[in-house]
């Protein structure tokens, strides 16, 4: 599979399997609490060991498109990515490492969310992610391209539960152009229309 540029984030390892690049982070951080002498203190605590963030590239009608996921259930679909030197650019956010693909300036944004399948915390995270995307596509928040980092790809195994299977996603967040069937990969269209 073709590579992307990493702008922010420092994955420990990148593993290619079934045409997907899995960016491996040893720990995903979340909010937990510890109790010391009866006092509960909120702390960023590891919530998942390890964390695999997938990136899958599609080439359709000569254009590059990128798919990833958020919290294993929500497909993130970037169909109008900014291309620099033939590659899309990805940021891995701090903590949850959810990939964000840099998109062209006049990008659009939309979602289809199966609310009843999200827990309270997941719904709050999804809202945060959507609003961050909105800030970026509206131009209110600028994301700078600081450095375009390459990476080495290794062959390896991915735990079954971490495999990127689009059919397991019940919701989708798209950034770019309004998805039309003729411009959308079949497996992404299936999630959009299911």
């Amino acid at each position, binding site marked *: 599979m073709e590579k992307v540029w990493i702008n922010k984030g420092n994955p420990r390892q990148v593993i290619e399997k079934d045409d997907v690049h899995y960016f491996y982070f040893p720990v995903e951080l*979340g*909010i*937990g*609490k510890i109790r010391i002498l009866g006092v*509960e203190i*909120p702390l960023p605590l590891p919530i998942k060991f390890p964390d695999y963030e997938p990136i899958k590239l599609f080439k359709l009608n000569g254009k590059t498109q990128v798919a990833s996921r958020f919290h294993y259930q929500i497909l993130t679909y970037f169909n109008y990515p900014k291309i620099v030197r033939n590659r899309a650019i990805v940021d891995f956010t701090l903590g949850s490492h959810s990939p964000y693909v840099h998109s062209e300036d006049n990008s*659009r*944004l*939309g*979602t*289809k*969310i*199966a*609310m*009843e399948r*999200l*827990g*309270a*915390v997941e*719904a*709050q*995270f*999804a*809202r*945060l992610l*959507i*609003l*961050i995307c*909105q*800030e970026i*596509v*509206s131009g209110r*928040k600028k994301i700078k391209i600081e450095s375009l980092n390459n990476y080495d790809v290794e062959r390896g195994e991915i735990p079954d539960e971490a495999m990127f299977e689009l059919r397991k996603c*019940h*919701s989708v967040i798209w950034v770019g152009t*309004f998805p039309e069937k003729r411009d959308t990969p079949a497996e992404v269209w299936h999630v959009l229309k*299911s």
Partner: protein
Amino acid sequence: MTLDKLLLKYKPSEEDVQETTTRKSLVGKWTSYRKRSSLTDSKFRIIPEDDRFDYVRKRSFKSFVREYHDFALQTETPKILLDKDRFFERQGGYHWEIVLTIPRKLVDLHRISQNTEFLVKKICEENYAYLIPEIDRLKHLDDESALRLASTIEQSFNISKLEVDDPFQKRIFEDLQWGMIEIKKILYCIIDKENVEKARNKLTKTVDDLESKMLALEEIKKAFGRLGIDEKTALKEFAVRKLPDGRVELVWKKSG
């Protein structure tokens, strides 16, 4: 109409009565008549729900009797709403008369109403820093008080869920409401003295889990602030519609 006495009338015929039971509980006094040949209906509890008192107060005695189905009857089986037709069907034709005498100190309508209203305000503001200590109190209150508080909080989540337009908020409140329903179920077990020790451990764990969830929600909410996002304003920029497949579609309006 006084609030002190509520009458739900299902009077059995004399020859059918095998046993009359009158009991006092914190929610009031009730009398039940067990129908001859039945041994299954001896255990039930009536839990008056806070807002329902307000509802009853507005009605005359006569019309109140017609509204009995607004009360919840707790039996060994899951909660059954007192709907006249269903009631007879579910209970296999038992008849009983229940007189609830509600101590005024327990039905402080004004306070309860204010509590709910205040809690709804805090919930809609997503003020988890306020809500977490309230939930934590459930571990330390006596069982009946904890149940009343849990009912008030659960009801407040229910109202808040209906109050807000943001579909994410709706879902968050709904999920938290389910957490409160779970806590109420455990409290019912404790009050009924069913596996009390196990139920108490489960209560502590469930309350802790709910607190952790709220803590996480609070931390994510702080992230909105740190990123300079006003979620209420930001979401107004989205066209929201419910899709036939049950999903919610949000499309950024400025997308054209």
